[in-house]
């Protein structure tokens, strides 16, 4: 309970930093920290497989991808992000608070829950077996999706070179 509490507080602080900090690289690094702490939280809660997947995919791939994109799209107009930031942040907060209220109200409306004793999650082996037996079609579908995404992203991000022999 106490570790979860401390982790939650750290996650919130890191996420707040990712939202608030003006420099894009700082925000991206704090996002990576938030995602890593989330993975630790999953591990603490007993979802070992999900924790490891979170580490590999989110921290290892998505966060690094975001940092690289920031490096590629680096411009000098960071001033634009800072100008009028407080007012914008306040407006965003005002717009986001109703959503927060609705999310909390849904929880309140559900009434008390009985907390079942589920001390530890399934082992990695069991999870893997479930994934590749009863969920095999879904895994294949995700494989097709990821292939399509890879091709699509490469096509989108490709540099448009002028055709040889053709003037610009």
């Amino acid at each position, binding site marked *: *309970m106490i570790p*979860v509490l401390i982790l*939650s507080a750290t*996650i*919130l602080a890191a*996420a*707040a930093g*990712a*939202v608030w900090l003006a420099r*894009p690289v700082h925000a*991206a690094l704090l996002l990576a920290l*938030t995602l890593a702490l*989330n993975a630790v*939280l*999953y591990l603490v*809660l007993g*979802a070992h*497989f*999900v924790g490891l*997947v*979170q580490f590999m*995919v*989110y921290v290892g791939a*998505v966060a690094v991808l*975001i940092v690289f*994109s920031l490096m590629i*799209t680096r*411009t000098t*107009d960071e001033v*634009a*992000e800072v100008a009028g*930031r407080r007012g914008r*942040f306040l*407006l*965003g907060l005002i*717009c*986001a*608070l109703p*959503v927060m209220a609705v*999310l*909390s109200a849904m*929880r309140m409306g559900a009434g008390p*829950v009985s907390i*079942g004793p*589920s001390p530890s*999650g*399934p082992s990695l082996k069991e999870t893997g077996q*479930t*994934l590749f037996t009863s*969920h095999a079609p879904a895994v294949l579908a*995700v494989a097709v999706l*990821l292939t399509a*995404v*890879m091709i*699509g*992203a*490469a096509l*989108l*991000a490709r*540099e448009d070179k002028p055709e040889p022999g053709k003037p610009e």
Partner: protein
Amino acid sequence: MNPLDMLLTLSALLFTLGLIAVLTRRNAILVLIGIELMLNAANLNFIAFWRYGPPDTAGPMFVVFSIAIAAAEAAVGLAIILMAFRHTRSTDLDKLNSLHG
């Protein structure tokens, strides 16, 4: 406060933070960071309900697929941002206000 409520509150707060980032940031990549935060909040809910709900393995499975799709979304999103950057030399969303290629 029981642990389930605590995790759900954490998830709601994370979602709100992500929403604020989406609403207030001007850099398209930072908006994507907000979207990632919101996706993470949803995943956290799955794990929380799995951990403190009736015994079932559906929660973690759902999160695994959700993470795969989130990775796909991030890849395509960043590719689109790079494409837009090549056209306008900027990732400022206020400047990307035309569909003209």
